[in-house]
């Protein structure tokens, strides 16, 4: 309204400046064209002003453009999370349906700015960069749908990653106001920093009905196994600092403790360990002379000596990750990134993605009470295992911790696996780093079975046009008692196979196989081997020096008593 008033008042203001007709004419024409262009442009953008589909570079949207929603004081509050919720009781599986791709569809609510009746926002930070990244990653993934009616899982755009920035009651009201909330059914909330002082609950305090919680820092008492998903606490250093992958192996320090918020009792314990074991242990704290802020997050000190964090993590074989007031620590992510084996001391903590990740291969979990025995316990771990753990730790970080995208999509994949368990990812897919995936051998016939003779075997004979040779083979092989079936593959397009019943008798048997003696044939086969090896990327064939013979082969023993007397006689 005011905008249009402004423009109409401008019109007359231009008139006194007009000196000639032409000038008026051109100015008018120009301004009309300009106005028209602006108008068309705005018209085009307007219906999508929040969810623009236009070219990225032109997009000047901002969080502040999101529609404002006022929450009345009396707005309903969801119930507290129900601890007995499981997928079969609190999750509506009908929404996910049967689909050939076995993939759940995830809908994200458009962004809104919730404020209470007096206009104070429900969150001090609003949409954080991390949550923005997370939602964007979901929207770019195969899980995403913009069709709310087809969605199986709903992700609110209300950012609850950090409980500290939230007003609990109002946030809950905002959740309940989501159009498809329906008692939180099939809604997924992401929270990394739950609880608040002084008790620091281990799960988000916002009442949330039946919503699933992807939470960082669950304890065994708040985690609803098979329903919630335990996620890592994202470390912003992951994006800022590049730590190149280091080869597994022994490092300068054996144990490193680099966290700053360690309870003084535990710090005293660590210092005692340091006294006993000296150089093997490096015990860092925050630098007292540096001011607080982002810079201090990147430095650690020991007796005035300053170390770069997280780089120093790469200098140690084991890195302590002690609980703070909260169980989940962002330091875990830094430690994994550095390929340092985390030593986790946080009783009752549900490790991130523990539903699918085998943490025993990437970390050492020690009860808090046994902190004093840490050194002895770690010393007992074989070197080769430490190396495997270092590799595994780095791989976990790369695949599941390194970005909000990785965290978000892993969470969705875990939920997807629960809904379509028969199409779920395997243990190997989750846990084996690529280097192992390529070098390991997993036989499809892995059960050690000694097959009985009863079903016999099927012989498959490939042939071209040497009928006589074929008949010779057939005659010989048909004498075998355990032959169940004989299959001849006729591989000649120019000739049809011989017809009718043939008596398989070896004719003359003189045609010596001249083919394999042929020089060019050998050369061709060598070329094949090289070609195949290059396609496989490696030479999969293995050389052995043994060959299977019957037990009494060539033994000085009556031939008629041998099971396979004729072997080697030809």
């Amino acid at each position, binding site marked *: 309204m005011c905008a249009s008033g402004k423009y109409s008042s401008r019109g007359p203001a231009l008139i006194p400046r007009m000196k000639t*007709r032409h000038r008026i004419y051109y100015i008018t024409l120009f301004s009309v064209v300009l106005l028209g262009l602006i108008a068309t442009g705005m018209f085009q953008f307007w219906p999508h002003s929040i969810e623009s589909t236009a070219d990225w570079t032109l997009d000047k949207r901002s969080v502040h453009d999101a529609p404002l929603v006022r929450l009345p004081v009396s707005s309903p509050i969801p119930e507290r999370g129900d601890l007995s919720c499981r997928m079969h009781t609190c999750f509506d599986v009908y929404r996910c349906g049967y689909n050939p791709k076995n993939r759940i569809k995830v809908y994200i609510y458009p962004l809104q700015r919730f404020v209470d009746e007096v206009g104070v926002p429900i969150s001090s*930070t609003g949409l954080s960069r991390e949550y923005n*990244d997370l939602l964007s990653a979901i929207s770019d993934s195969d899980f995403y749908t*913009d069709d709310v*009616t087809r969605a199986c899982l709903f992700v609110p755009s209300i950012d609850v990653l950090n409980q500290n920035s939230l007003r609990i009651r109002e946030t809950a009201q905002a959740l309940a106001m989501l159009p498809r909330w329906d008692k939180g059914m099939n809604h997924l909330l992401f929270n990394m920093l739950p609880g608040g002082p002084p008790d620091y609950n281990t799960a988000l305090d916002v009442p949330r009905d039946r919503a699933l919680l992807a939470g960082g820092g669950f304890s065994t008492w708040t985690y609803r196994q098979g329903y919630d998903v335990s996620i890592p606490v994202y470390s912003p250093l992951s994006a800022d600092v590049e730590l190149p992958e280091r080869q597994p192996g022994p490092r300068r320090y054996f144990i490193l403790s680099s966290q700053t918020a360690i309870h003084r009792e535990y710090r005293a314990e660590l210092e005692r360990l340091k006294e006993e074991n000296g150089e093997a242990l490096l015990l860092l704290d925050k630098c007292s002379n540096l001011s607080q802020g982002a810079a201090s997050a990147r430095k650690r000190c020991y007796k005035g000596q300053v170390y770069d964090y997280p780089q120093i993590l790469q200098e140690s074989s084991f890195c302590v990750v002690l609980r703070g007031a909260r169980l989940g620590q962002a330091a875990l992510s830094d430690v994994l990134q550095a390929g340092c084996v985390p030593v986790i001391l946080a009783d009752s903590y549900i490790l991130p993605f523990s539903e699918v990740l085998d943490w025993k291969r990437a970390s050492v979990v020690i009860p808090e009470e046994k902190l004093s025995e840490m050194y002895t316990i770690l010393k007992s771990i074989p070197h080769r295992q430490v190396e495997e753990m270092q590799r595994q730790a780095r791989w976990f970080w790369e695949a599941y911790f390194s970005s909000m995208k990785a965290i978000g999509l892993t969470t969705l994949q875990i939920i997807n696996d629960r809904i379509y368990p028969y199409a779920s990812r395997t243990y190997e897919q989750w846990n084996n780093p690529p280097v192992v995936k390529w070098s390991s051998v997993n036989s499809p016939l892995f059960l050690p079975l000694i097959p009985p003779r009863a079903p016999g075997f099927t012989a498959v004979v490939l042939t071209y046009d040497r009928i006589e040779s074929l008949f010779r083979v057939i005659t010989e092989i048909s004498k075998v008692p355990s032959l169940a079936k004989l299959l001849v593959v006729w591989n000649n397009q120019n000739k049809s196979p011989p017809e009718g019943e043939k008596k398989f008798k070896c004719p003359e048997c003189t045609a010596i196989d001249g083919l394999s003696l042929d020089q060019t044939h050998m050369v061709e086969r060598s070329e094949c081997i090289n070609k195949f090896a290059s396609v496989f990327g490696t030479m999969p064939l293995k050389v052995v020096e043994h060959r299977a013979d019957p037990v009494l082969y060539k033994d000085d023993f009556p031939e008629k008593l041998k099971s396979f007397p004729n072997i080697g006689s030809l």
Partner: protein
Amino acid sequence: MQAKKRYLILFSAGACLILLFCFGGIQVPLSRRGPTRRDDRSLTGYRSGAQWRRFPGVVQPFSPWDQEESDGYNGHISPRQKRDAITGVYSGKRCRMESCFDFSLCERNGFKVYVYPQQKGEKMSESYQNILSSIEGSRFYTSDPGQACLFVLSLDTLDRDQLSPQYVHNLKAKIQSLPLWNGGKNHIIFNLYSGTWPDYTEDLGFDIGFAMLAKASISTENFRPNFDVSIPLFSKDHPRTGGERGYLKHNSIPPFRKYMLVFKGKRYLTGIGSDTRNALYHVHNSEDVVLLTTCKHGKDWQKHKDARCDKDNAEYDKYDYREMLYNSTFCLVPRGRRLGSFRFLEALQAACVPVMLSNGWELPFSEIINWNTAAVIGDERLLLQIPSTVRSIHQDKILSLRQQTQFLWEAYFNSVERIVLTTLEIIQDRVLQHPSRSSLMWNSLPGGLFTLPQYSTYLGDFPFYYAKLGIKPYSKFTAIIHVVTPLVSQSQPIIKLLVAVAKSQYCAQVIQILWNCDKPLPAKHRWPATSVPVIVIEGESKVMSSRFLPYDTIPTDAVLSLDEDTVLSTTEVDFAFTVWQSFPDRIVGYPARSHFWDSNKERWGYTSKWTNDYSMVLTGAAIYHRYYHYLYTTYLPTSLKTMVDQISNCEDILMNFLVSSVTKLPPIKVTQKKQYKETMMGQTSRASRWADPDHFAQRQTCMNKFASWFGSMPLVHSQMRLDPVLFKDQVSILRKKYRDIERL
């Protein structure tokens, strides 16, 4: 001029109108989005164009290091106090190891289990007796409650269905009067049935206090993760030990059987658990999906019978349960009155992939078994989708599911003993926490009961995972020569043997000589000079079993085990070792023996005759993985080891039993060599144990003793011998790498 002016006004008016529309248009939806009108918004507003897009720039980062946390934290109560406080807060239904288990009892003596003495006049079911005797026969058992970490009641708690004849009355009072009960702390209570008609609750009818439950048919809601153990429902006929093998004898490809999906069982017309079974007929197609129910059960079934009962009952009688079980690719396992059913184990054994329809059942040993690899977890709510779901499963996956059913059946379920041991091992892993098994150890061959984490937590230290990890065993071996006669002359076979073995290119730094002779050790210079160091260990108690002790001085994966009178050339040692590298989980060696069933005497027989097959390779000249030393020493019961030590015989047979029961495979005999003992009998004064006529008879007895402890005959016959590739072929001997083998 006037016209121009009019045009101008017209244009600007038009432009203003457009603008007005634009800006006004934004305000319209804003006003519509008021909280009072959210209902119609849910129907419209969100559908079109509600695509989420990233917001560029200006978004605040969230900070995981909040200062208030670290500052406030130190003022906090001490973590020690906090830990102690947990015990009081989280009890009963919220029990966890941290809050309801006393770890300090396990610190001094490790994981030891005490079983209360049985009281006279107390009735006990056969199943519970089997459970108790399995524990008493295990290596965890202690008869001293002072040493115990875990306590097991001798009161039968298996059947807590009040209507059952097995129900033990007054359990509450009986338990409270036990002096060691201690509120149930560190106790484990086994239970198969709880609750009764009509609601079948999971209450046991007495206060279990801090005790853990090892319970069948436990629901996820009542299951206390990492505290309780979900066990399978097993029948009273379930064998105590040994147990039947799985049904799968060979892999058929493609893996489809006559039926795709079968079920045969009772239909409950009303009450708990009736919904799913009542709906099964929708899916039945009487061709490859055969789901049969009967109403005929219980006394008054006629009273409740519905319109379909007669038809269903008739169809039900047409099919044989066993025939269906063994000829179906998938077997439906729907819940009964309780969540678990016998059908689960039956399907598992029959290699019929279980399709679970039992919402909320915490599957047996769910803490360690990844059931997605052996079963299809269905959802009762999606019953109608089950046929299309199982049809969508790829052949490769079916093949793998089926094999995994067999592995799991034999590893954890086929006897009461296995079920009990698995339960105990799970708890041990929790108690010890640091040396505990990874998921891979539990879910791949040979399974957690044979993979002891106290040996190592590194997968590469075991003989089973090389291929999985894409690594190879260490390419050296350590030879252990077992000596029982004094060294008197330099022409003794041991001298020759020592020289031959030391010359092997694969021989590591150490050759151990286990001096189990009563005479003192010979002087150092009496041993021949070798390029590799020789370590002489004097056996402490000079018993046979000491040759299989897991010595710290064995640095290699492979052990070459030798008798002092073995005759072996360097070439033979080299060849055997290269073969072992391909089969690191098996015994690879020269002297082969066989077992057979003597039907006249109805017992196992032992033979050293030349036969067309063999099932043992004696440890007088064999290579095997170092881990088997550890397993021999810790896994086998003292009774068998003592027997071996007392008669100084059979240790090699026992080792073969052990390895075959782990691998389910025969050992490997390498190349032609019949003569591996020096035939010096009569020439020297020493009494070779091989010359003793009792020796052979003892070995027969051993076979039968061992077979009875293992519960079945683990040895497997083989007809294969591995020779060097050009062995005895008509080519020049110069082209052969292992030519010395033929010259011997």
